[in-house]
């Protein structure tokens, strides 16, 4: 089975899982004891958070591989992983704000380290994409994007562990032991749904980047001869 076919299947599987997980989360799982139906947003918020961190981790791995081997394939995959990670990061922040308003009474607070570091993570990787957009030379573009990705990745473990190191408004990581089984199921299904969808999007973005690079490599003709003119 071809690589493209496998990624397409992953994309379809991702959509199916997301639809199933969201249905169970919205209509089957019980409402949370204290927050009621508002807490159902966690079934997409937490999977977005996990997969955003995972995409940045993939991007870090691809960046190291790109710097070590200089193969364009790693650069293309790194671009895809950073872009998908940024999209999931934006969704994570927006869903977090929607959840914070009814539960904490505010849209945003600078006093919470998880919020601040998640926002910083978005700025750091958006900066990586900005750097990439401003570099014309293809070889430099790949190397510098990889270097900026490695430098930005230092924030990712901080986002994950900050709730353990500095206690503030945001709760610590939930585990299956701290959640009702009926709530664990839709969260897991959606987590895999977003993961498969991210896989498909990264592969599609990498393919787009490969075609763009191949197009850029084609030399422009020195002169265009127009019929009837010298």
């Amino acid at each position: 089975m071809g690589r493209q076919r496998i990624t397409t299947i992953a994309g379809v599987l991702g959509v199916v899982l997301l639809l199933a997980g969201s249905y169970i989360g919205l209509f089957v799982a019980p409402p949370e004891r204290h927050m009621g139906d508002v807490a159902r947003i966690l079934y997409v918020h937490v999977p977005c958070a996990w997969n955003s961190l995972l995409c940045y981790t993939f991007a870090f791995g691809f960046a190291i591989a790109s710097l070590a081997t200089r193969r364009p394939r790693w650069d293309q995959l790194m671009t895809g992983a950073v872009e998908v990670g940024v999209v999931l990061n934006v969704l994570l922040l927006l869903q977090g704000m929607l959840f914070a308003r009814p539960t904490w009474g505010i849209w945003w607070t600078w006093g919470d380290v998880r919020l601040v570091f998640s926002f910083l993570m978005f700025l750091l990787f958006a900066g990586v994409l900005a750097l990439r957009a401003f570099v014309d030379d293809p070889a430099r573009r790949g190397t510098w994007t990889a270097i900026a990705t490695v430098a930005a990745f230092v924030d990712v473990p901080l986002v994950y562990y900050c709730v353990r190191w500095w206690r503030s408004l945001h709760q610590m990581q939930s585990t299956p032991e701290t959640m009702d089984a009926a709530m664990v199921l839709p969260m897991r299904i959606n987590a895999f749904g977003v993961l498969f969808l991210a896989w498909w999007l990264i592969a599609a973005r990498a393919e787009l980047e490969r075609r763009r690079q191949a197009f850029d490599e084609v030399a422009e003709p020195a002169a265009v001869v127009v019929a009837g003119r010298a």
Partner: protein
Amino acid sequence: MSATAERPAARGLAREIGAVIAKDLLLEWRSRARLLATVLFGIVALALFSFAAGADVAVLERGAAGFLVLALLLSSTLGLAESFRVEQDDSAMEGLLLLPIDPHALFYGKALGNTLFLSLLGPVLAVAAVVFYAVEVGPRALVQLVLLWVLAAAGLSAPGTLYAAMTSRARSQDVLLPLIHYPLVVPVLLAAVKSIDLILNGDPMGQLGSWTALLAGFALVYWSLGGVLFPLAVEE
């Protein structure tokens, strides 16, 4: 490699780092434009913060630590960008890379030069803060402030030097450097502001050590990472 073989190699690297710092200091001494512009910019920033915060002395005193570190951060952009802009004239960077010196020496020389340069801003901005924000500093607090300032300057310089080496050769370098540098150094900003605040206003809970450790940890990570990544960033 044996210990005796490693020693001359380390001495060679130290000599090369010294040569890079000496070159940058000589260039700076001849024009003094970068130092003057950066110091003036820092003072202007401190004055602007005063206008934004209003004339209430209590408010200014409370925000003094934040204003000082922000002035350092904003001034650092000018200094860091300029440290590599001079290497773009007459393709000086290519000349440097053709010299038989270790690229790591180039990074550590540039980063140490930038740290020294930003550290020199400290006394000027501190005097301005005493005047503008009615800050009172005792001798012990002054020593702590100087050490902390050098640590914050080191934390800003390592990633800043790495990024300035790249953005100096990209389009819209003036926009790019702060865009990628500022979010990265937020931990330095937070730790330095908190530490300076604790030095100026007292530390009843004994938190100064942990914030300084965060600052030192950040500097250590990026001084190590910068040394590894810089040769890749400047290769042609």
